[in-house]
């Protein structure tokens, strides 16, 4: 994706649509803190609150991509701080494998992101999100593995 193509696409009005799975106790609270602190961050994200990053079924991420999300972010508590003690530690292993697997089958690695954001890290959340959006923007609209309905068999 060249800079020119990217600009042209943004010029066409394309904005990345990011789905973010945020754990209730840390990352969601962190995102909320960013909001009440009036920290500006781009509006490209749709948030889905989950109790813990360990609750994330890898299929959620795969389905988000299938549904047409340009990018997916999963964010949880820092290791050692999980409200459920170790959910994020199991999740870390799952996410490492999933990110690697998705890249392996040709889903651009710039689309799938994992992070740790605590409830006090409003600014960090905004920064990470900005980075994610830029990363997704650099690879353009998703066009692999999307399930399209308008076409008829």
């Amino acid at each position, binding site marked *: 994706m060249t800079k020119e193509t990217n600009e042209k696409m943004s010029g066409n009005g394309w904005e990345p649509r990011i789905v973010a799975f945020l754990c209730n106790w840390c990352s969601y609270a962190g995102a909320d803190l960013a909001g009440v602190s009036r920290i500006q961050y781009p509006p490209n994200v749709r948030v889905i609150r989950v109790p813990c990053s360990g609750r994330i079924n*890898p*299929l959620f991420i*795969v*389905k988000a991509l*299938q549904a047409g999300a340009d990018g997916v*972010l999963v964010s949880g508590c820092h*290791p*050692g701080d999980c409200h459920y003690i*170790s959910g994020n*530690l*199991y999740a*870390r*292993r*799952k*996410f*490492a*494998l*999933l*990110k*690697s*697997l*998705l*890249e*392996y*089958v*040709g*889903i*651009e*690695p710039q689309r799938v*992101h*994992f*992070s*740790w954001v605590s409830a006090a890290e409003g600014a*960090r959340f905004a*920064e*990470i999100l*900005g*980075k*994610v959006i830029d*990363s997704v923007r650099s690879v353009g609209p998703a066009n*692999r*593995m*999307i*399930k*399209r309905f308008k076409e008829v*068999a």
Partner: protein
Amino acid sequence: MNQVEETLRQEVAKLLEDGTIDVFVGHEAVSLPLRTSPCFVRSPKEVDRLVWDRICTRNLATYLPQLFKRPVGLKGEWTPPKVGVVAKGCDSRSIVGLIKEKQIPRDRLFIIGVGCEGMIDRHSVGRVLGVVGLADAKVDGNSVQVIGTDGREKRIDIADVLAASCRECQHREAVLSNLTVGEAPSSAPEVSHYANVAGFELKSSQERWEHWVEELSRCIRCYACRQACPNCYCEECFAEETAPQWLGVTTDLSDVFVFHLGRAFHQAGRCVDCGACVAACPQGIDLRLLNQKINKDVEELFEAQASLSLEEAEALSSFRMEDDQSFMTEP
């Protein structure tokens, strides 16, 4: 008949006679060449059905969980049978996995371990013959004599038509057994069992995508891979769940990707690379290229290999504080 086959039959007859087991799961001959079928022997008089040769490709562990399930509609007392099974290295690893996941009870299982230097992949033989079909074949030492449907004969080195998973196998002996028959196999050659994956990783994202599009377009959603796999024992597979519906049931490419990514991921830390999925696929899809990627990551990131011992916890059921997190996004 070979020595291992003869000894196997003798041992199984003894086990059935003295009541150590109620049923023995093994392989039996079928009319088509280079194939066997699973065999359930319940009487010492039937042990001659059992065979052992370089064509016993399937993973018998797949057939074990069903034997320990209470028969439907049976009233009254039922105790699970005592089951014997012949196991190669890969089969035994699958058995270890099933025991750990509480699908089969160790104390009602009698495993006869057999050393294995690799099984013949009949699809490789088919490719040697080209479009001509296989009329007959006979294993003879380290080679196999084949006759095509055009009448032409050919002698092929077994080493040239070994199943891919056998070629890279590092576990030639059973990792868990009650009894071993046959000689110890020669040590496995030092080959990287991830060479195919490493090579694939070097391709560009576009090339990798195109490869999987082409490969997975062949899928007809028959689920042979899933049914042949010992690890896939879920009574309701995610692919068939309707609430929620994770994926469609058609060969819409997007859904095919979701199925194979999902199934491969469900094998993470559990797949023993037995090759049963590849052998079962009627379309010859190289699923190992997907499963081995996860196996490689599990080994490199978590220093774990699936199901080598009963004591070790599975990779995705454990964690270390120092687990790698270099893949994570930082501002």
